[in-house]
């Protein structure tokens, strides 16, 4: 029983954008426009971090999904796994281009200092410190951030909806559909050996009534999988941005749900870290990734 999902996009600081002379209804059309906005911020508002892209092994899946995959899935169809061939994609130009983007962000110092970017607590610091204190221009991150800012949460920041703007992550060259997002999600399942499956099913039913589901999505900044809740004015208005992120579901992607994925994800994180620290070139990182994917998937790879 699907329970909820999430999407990812760009959060930007309206105040920093004003100072940098960038539009309040900003929507980059491709990677270059995104990088240019970051360069403008760096030039005009030098004491803030222009653009955060999660990277490296300390961030774990955060780096892979909010970072590299948000880039990779904007480079073309099925860039990570080819469902027809049932093979993992290696040696693709899209992968190199995505790494090149990460390298550019950190080499040109458009991103956080590398030592911050590789801090295991970076994601928490972005939500609790960088964004609320107006120290970050653009943040490539998930739809759930406001759950930290709701009244009663760790970093209460009710003004966020006025101070932050939202934009969809563009595809590499603006190719159709023009924007890209990644989604995870949760489901409820009843094990086949459950002692009382009927009661368990009733429990799920109660939990997923329109009223209860609405309450749950609002409280955890989740995205509804019920169409009627998604249209409900109370859900739509509960959180500015929830409509934006719900609409992104139309252009979202899911990670390949195979046992090898966690290993592929680790390989992605490693390749990102290499270009972030500057310890290795894009080519070296990409070929290291290819080797690791080959061994992680028992050679079930396809060159693209």
């Amino acid at each position: 029983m699907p329970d909820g999902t999430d999407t990812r996009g760009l959060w930007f600081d309206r105040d920093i954008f004003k100072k940098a002379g960038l539009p309040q209804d900003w929507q980059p059309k491709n990677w270059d426009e995104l990088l240019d906005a970051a360069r403008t911020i760096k030039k005009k508002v030098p004491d803030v971090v222009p653009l955060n892209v999660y990277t490296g092994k300390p961030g774990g899946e955060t780096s892979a999904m909010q970072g590299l995959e948000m880039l990779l899935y904007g480079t073309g169809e099925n860039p990570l796994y080819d469902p027809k061939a049932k093979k993992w994609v290696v040696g693709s130009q899209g992968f190199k281009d995505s790494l090149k983007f990460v390298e550019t962000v950190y080499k040109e110092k458009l991103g956080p200092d590398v030592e911050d970017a590789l801090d295991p607590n970076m994601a928490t610091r972005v939500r609790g410190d960088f964004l609320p204190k107006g120290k970050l221009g653009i943040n490539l991150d998930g739809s759930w951030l406001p759950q930290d800012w709701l009244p009663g949460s760790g970093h209460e920041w009710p003004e966020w909806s006025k101070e932050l703007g939202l934009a969809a992550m563009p595809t590499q060259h603006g190719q159709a559909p023009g924007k890209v997002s990644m989604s995870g999600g949760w489901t409820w399942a009843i094990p086949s050996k459950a002692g009382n499956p009927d009661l368990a099913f009733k429990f799920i039913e109660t939990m997923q009534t329109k009223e209860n589901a609405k309450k749950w999505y609002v409280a955890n900044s989740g995205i509804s999988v019920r169409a009627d809740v998604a249209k409900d004015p109370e859900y739509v208005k509960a959180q500015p941005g929830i409509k934006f992120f719900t609409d992104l579901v139309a252009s979202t992607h899911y990670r390949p749900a195979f046992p090898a994925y966690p290993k592929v994800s680790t390989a992605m994180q490693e390749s990102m870290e290499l270009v972030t620290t500057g310890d290795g070139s894009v080519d070296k990182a990409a070929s290291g990734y290819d080797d690791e994917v080959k061994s992680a998937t028992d050679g079930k790879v396809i060159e693209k």
Partner: protein
Amino acid sequence: MKAPSARSAGRTEPGPRRLPGHRRLARSLARALPVSPAVVLMLLFLAGPIGYCAYIAFTDLQLTGQAHESFVGFENFRTAFDDEDFINAVWLTLVFTFLSSIVGQNTLGLALASLMQRASKPVRTITGAVVITAWVLPEVVAGFLLYAFFRRDGTLNEVLDLLHLPSQNWLYTLPILAVSFANVWRGTAFSMLVYSAALNEIPKEITEAAEVDGASGWRRMWHITLPMIRRSIGTNLMLNTLQTLSVFGLIWVMTRGGPGNRSQTLPLFMYEQAFQKSMIGYGTAVALLLLLVGSLFSLVYMRLLRTEV
């Protein structure tokens, strides 16, 4: 020496009172009976897992997504020695162990213990309490405290700023030094306790005699104290080293082995291979190699212990 005769008591007795074979056997069995539950438990929960570990180190077992594992012989070990990340981890482990255990914990523990011998009681109590607090803190808490201490806007830099000294970020620039320091901070108490006990065992007369002979403080330390606590030094070094070799939580919390893999010691490397990349066979092979490093250290210390003064 009592030890040998005490040991042979548990076995069949070769002594003068020779019993008929079957009675001897019956008696041995009767004597073995009380310890058998313990032996069974040990076999089941200690020898069993160790044996299983040794077995999977020779397979290509993965945690997920594998239909069958197969026996691959020494393949995992060959992979390890060809893997520059593994070699890097071995070096870092040696540096970490040398800096934090042998130089840091051991020397600092001895220094603290001998200073405390001469200190007044309140000083002794307070120092002891502070040092031991660091030791009893759970590893994760200690790791977080030191992360907060070393990080760029952490306590250490606040203090350095106050003194108008240049700031540092060793977690990034010299991570192996930062985690070594953390391990010293956390583990010195143990050495201090061992050495305090050892120093108390030195008879006063000997030190006094040396003093009367005009031996200075350093000479007393070198010629009297150190030789007399030699056994404690050996024991302490062995325990320290083995514990330091397996430090995981502290480094994991502080740096996750990064940046790059500049603080990735063998336990972290092993964890990454076994649980993040799911290559449990390879990870276990690395664990066996770590065991080998540990036993090499132990051998050296055992020799040190055996030599009589």
